């Protein structure tokens, strides 16, 4: 009986508290498909434990010991009754020494069992947390190396779910299912053997009825699974609606649309309730069904067993212990079937994680690197070990020689054709030439390919060899990291990180001093508003800088780029939410900073690009006009139309 109860406990979920994942999931094994290749995935998980082999051996040994002691507990009663109690009944001065010896022996075994349980639990925590840690770090490291294209084709939700939901199921599998499976497995095999040994005929009855029970439980599980899928779908709908309406709550209020949205919400909420109620009902029914069916089975076995006892086929003690085993047999069997679901789900999760880890990283065959340089009057370049505000490309050649080329920011595009999808080109034969120290601007309507050009300059996407040259070097030969270090980009969508204002600016240059940060902020005209924040430069920014206005976030992003002080600066609609007066102040600051360096500017607002050295007007992925402001006005082409408001940009 002890065995039964122990399992009863361990099958109940260990208190582990609320899941931190965003949306609640089903309790176990009912979502999504199973793993495609379970064996391979299991092997892979174990490969993470290869440095913990010793611990694993101890763990498995201890689980075995703990389980055997548990079974012994069940088996204990028979010899106790048969050998030491029954013979002594009615004796006047019974000799208890054998009985006591047996009890002490059992006590010893029990202590070992407890110890074994403790040891394997303790080691398992070590192993599982370490494994999870390693998988997590692997996943993140790989994620950082994936090309931008990967993030274009996978939603944040999808990737996040690998980190939260999938990781959680793997964690639960490692810390619970693993030990339980071994435990239940040994129990089933052990109990089965003993039962078979006690009475093969009765065993047959038990096995048949177990299959019957499992069939019923399986049918319930299938039902429950179906409704859990439905619940998950409805939960997604409700949560999506919640997200949308809370994010748009201010609009709802401005339009007095509260009542309508309440009606919509109630409808979705009701659907979710219906699905969730069914799903949970079936799940809740599972346990009592299993329990009570095994009582019925017990009664049946007892009746049949008694017939055998009366017929003299087996003795009383055998039936008594057999009945014990009947109870402790059905428990682990159903447990395994339940664990099986959980494990399959965890393996499917692990597979998704490993798919991410196996994702092809950004290819980088570049070998030209960026170095700080000293350049003497004759133009000879030598490598410097400190920042000199001059940079050079270090170019190793096949013959082992090294050449240095000064980084000037000369960018050439030669007939570049590019599309994000193979069947849809965004750039159709772009050729351009940016002289060092120039300010180059791109204007054009949405979808004309402005941002795409900058995406190619920093190799977020690759083009065929030789089409783009940077200081005369084919950019595919330049190491991606070094290429990007030579450029600062202020992106269209400003993203800030959780942390202080100071830390956010410092992101541009990790070793920047506070003074450098302040100077950069002044340059970007951010200093005045930062000073007015509650804690100045130490104000915490949360959730992508939600506590700042769009314009203020852009100012910070510019400061972040300014502190990096790079040879090339790319501003992609970086000042769209900043008023023109402030924009002009920033421009003056940036002009000073970027004197003799190259700046690319993309803007919607023509006042932003007006004083550029060269303005390229893009349309449908082609440059249709180029020149400075005066030249373009004189040409009286598209730019002129845009400028005078005769043509519409969308």
């Amino acid at each position: 009986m002890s065995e039964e109860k122990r399992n009863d406990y361990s099958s109940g979920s260990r208190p582990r508290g609320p899941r931190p994942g965003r949306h609640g999931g089903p309790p176990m094994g009912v979502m999504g498909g199973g793993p495609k290749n379970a064996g391979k995935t299991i092997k892979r998980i174990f490969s993470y434990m290869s440095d913990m082999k010793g611990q694993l051996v101890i763990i498995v040994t201890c689980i075995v010991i703990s389980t055997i002691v548990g079974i012994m507990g069940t088996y204990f009663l028979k010899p106790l009754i048969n050998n030491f109690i029954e013979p002594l009944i009615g004796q006047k001065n019974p000799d208890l020494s054998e009985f006591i010896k047996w009890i002490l022996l059992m006590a010893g075994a029990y202590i070992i069992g407890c110890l074994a349980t403790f040891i394997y639990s303790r080691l398992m925590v070590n192993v599982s947390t370490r494994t999870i840690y390693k998988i997590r770090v692997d996943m993140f490291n790989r994620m950082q190396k994936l090309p931008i294209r990967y993030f274009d084709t996978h939603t944040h939700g999808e990737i996040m779910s690998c980190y939260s939901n999938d990781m959680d199921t793997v964690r639960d599998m490692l810390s619970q299912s693993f030990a339980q499976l071994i435990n239940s497995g040994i129990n089933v095999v052990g109990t089965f053997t003993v039962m078979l040994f006690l009475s093969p005929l009765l065993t047959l009855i038990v096995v048949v009825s177990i299959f019957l029970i499992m069939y019923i439980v399986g049918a319930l599980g299938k039902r429950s699974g179906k409704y859990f899928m439905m619940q998950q779908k409805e939960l997604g709908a409700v949560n999506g609606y919640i997200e949308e309406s809370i994010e748009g709550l201010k609009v709802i209020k401005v339009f007095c649309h509260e009542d309508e949205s309440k009606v919509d919400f109630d409808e979705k909420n009701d659907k979710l309730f219906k699905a969730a109620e069914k799903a949970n009902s079936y799940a809740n029914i599972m346990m009592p069904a299993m329990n009570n069916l095994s009582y019925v089975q017990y009664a049946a076995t007892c009746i049949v067993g008694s017939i055998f006892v009366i017929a003299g086929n087996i003795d009383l003690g055998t039936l008594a212990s057999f009945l014990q085993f009947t109870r402790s047999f059905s428990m682990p069997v159903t447990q395994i079937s339940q664990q099986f679901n959980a494990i399959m789900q965890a393996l499917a999760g692990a597979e998704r994680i490993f798919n991410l880890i196996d994702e092809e990283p950004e290819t980088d065959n570049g070998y030209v690197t960026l170095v700080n340089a000293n350049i003497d009057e004759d133009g000879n370049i030598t490598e410097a070990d400190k920042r000199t505000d001059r940079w050079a490309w270090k170019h190793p050649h096949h013959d082992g020689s090294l050449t240095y080329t000064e980084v000037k920011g000369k960018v050439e595009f030669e007939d570049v054709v590019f599309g994000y999808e193979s069947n849809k080109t965004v750039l159709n034969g772009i050729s351009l030439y940016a002289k060092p120290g120039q300010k180059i601007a791109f204007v054009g309507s949405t979808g004309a390919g402005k941002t795409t050009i900058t995406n190619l300059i920093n190799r977020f996407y690759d083009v065929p060899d030789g089409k783009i040259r940077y200081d005369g070097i084919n950019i595919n030969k330049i190491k991606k990291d070094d290429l990007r270090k030579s450029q600062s980009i202020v992106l269209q969508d400003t993203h800030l990180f959780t942390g202080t204002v100071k830390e956010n600016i410092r992101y541009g240059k990790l070793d920047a001093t506070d003074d450098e940060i302040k100077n950069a902020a002044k340059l970007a005209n951010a200093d005045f508003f930062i000073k007015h924040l509650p804690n100045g430069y130490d104000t915490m920014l949360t959730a992508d800088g939600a506590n700042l206005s769009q314009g203020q976030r852009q100012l910070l992003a510019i400061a972040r780029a300014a502190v990096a002080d790079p040879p090339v600066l790319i501003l992609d609609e970086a000042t769209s939410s900043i008023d023109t007066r402030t924009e002009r102040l920033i421009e003056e600051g940036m002009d000073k900073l970027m004197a003799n360096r190259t700046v690319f500017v993309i803007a919607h607002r023509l006042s932003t690009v007006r004083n550029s050295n060269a303005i390229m007007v893009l349309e449908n992925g082609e440059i249709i006009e180029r020149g400075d402001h005066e030249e373009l006005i004189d040409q009286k082409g598209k730019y002129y139309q845009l400028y005078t408001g005769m043509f519409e940009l969308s």
Partner: protein
Amino acid sequence: MVKKILSCLGEYKKYAILTPVIIVGEVIMETLIPMVMAQMVDRGVANKDMSFILKMGALMILMAVISLTCGVLAGKFAATASMGLAKGIRKKEFYNISNFAFSNIDKIGTASLITRLTTDVTNTQNAFQMIIRMAVRAPLMFISATVMAVLINAKLSLIVAVAIPFLSFVLYFIATSAYPRFMEMLSKYDKLNARVQENLIAIRVVKSFVRGDYECEEFEKAADAVRNAQLRAERVVIWNMPAMQFSMYACTIAVSYFGGVMIIGGSFKVGALMSFVSYILQILLSLMMISMMFVMLVLSRASIQRIGEVLEEESDIKDDKGNEELKVEDGSIKFKDVAFSYANDPGNLTLESIDFEIKSGETIGIIGGTGSAKTSLVQLIPRLYDVIKGQVIVGGHDVREYKLNNLRDEVAMVLQKNVLFSGTIEDNLRWGDKNASMNEIEEACKAACAHDFIMEFPNGYKTDLGQGGVNVSGGQKQRICIARALLKKPKIIILDDSTSAVDTATDAHIRQAFKEKLSDTTTIIIAQRISSVADADRIIVLDQGKINAIGTHEELLKSNEIYKEVYESQQKGAA
């Protein structure tokens, strides 16, 4: 707090009460069944009394059926009650949030509100389900098993009297010391996930600054912190199993010895010993359940508290004193010595000494630098925030005298950070007027220069926008939003930098249409571009929360430094 949340049960209250009641039946059966089992072995099998065995067997099956029925019903009712609770909580939260003022939304934050409506509800629902299933079962099982054990053998029950306090103490100790550790782990885990999310959103920033390695290092630190926190928490929890086993084994040994001695002495029976052992285990098990329940409750405390906060949060803006009959008569606006602060702190004013008057039908431009409080100023007109000093008078009455709906129906505002909702373009436009005819919709879209591009979509007005209006460009979105506001046919319309992504020519067309079609409507335009406001009747120049000047374009060009500077910054270099 808990009371408030339980009140969300509503019509499902009866299920929440029925569940534990029915569970009583299940528990009673579960307690009795081992007794019947023992009888079967002790009397039936021992005496080879077949008819007795059959009788007991039938009784046992009957009891199992009753127990099964109770179990199934209880399971179903528990599901209904807990899911009903979740539904009720969501509904109450959603309704209350709908009544929030802007300042309430700002205070809690949208991200947090979403968590409180999703994850927190799920946690609470799970804890509740567990509790209604366990709250009666565990103590009842504890009591009934104790009674049975005492009935079977009072002397042997003394063993349990030692085991119970021991196990209770250990479990209590584990639960209380695990709780803070688990909370710590969860908060570390949240931070880790937040870090990943941030990296996903800002992957281009990370890559362009070549901070991949730096981020990986930071992530490793965060992951290590999670691992350590988890280790600390689990190290405590793993004591559960050995402690349980130890108590169980110790009891078994003690019962076997003392019971054995009694059997030998003739004062105890073999079958009784076996059921005694099983009752002891039931007692210990129910203790375990109680401790699990305790842990679960404690762990969901944070969620319960957060939900409670939303339910108890009262809207900062109330209109109970508003006059139902009072309608906005015209589009006149008057600010009388208005001061405003987001923090409600007179020492930290966003707007100060604002005094001006707008006649019905006027067009007013507002110009000012980043952070000059332009948006804050206009948000006071539809009473999205309340002033802390002075008065905002719309249509001749203080905004606080109106019912909010009456006021906001006449004041349309196109927000700077505007949002479209999933659904078709038409669905979105109908927000302005549910019953608008197709003609009216097209009319509004033409005025907002949106009709032409909408017609270019294959499905025209029936084009599906997707969540957040992802299928249209920034400029197009702004124009749909303007059309949506126009459909309200308001007396006052406010455009808060609503044409920033629209080019100058279209911007001019829109303004022209406004002039022609909305000559009676008071129009307020906030803009970065001078050209957007130049032909307004009057222009307000805001600087650091104060009015710097009011006048026409020509007047301001002559007399106002800031305005002149802005104007020149936009003219510089023009041919």
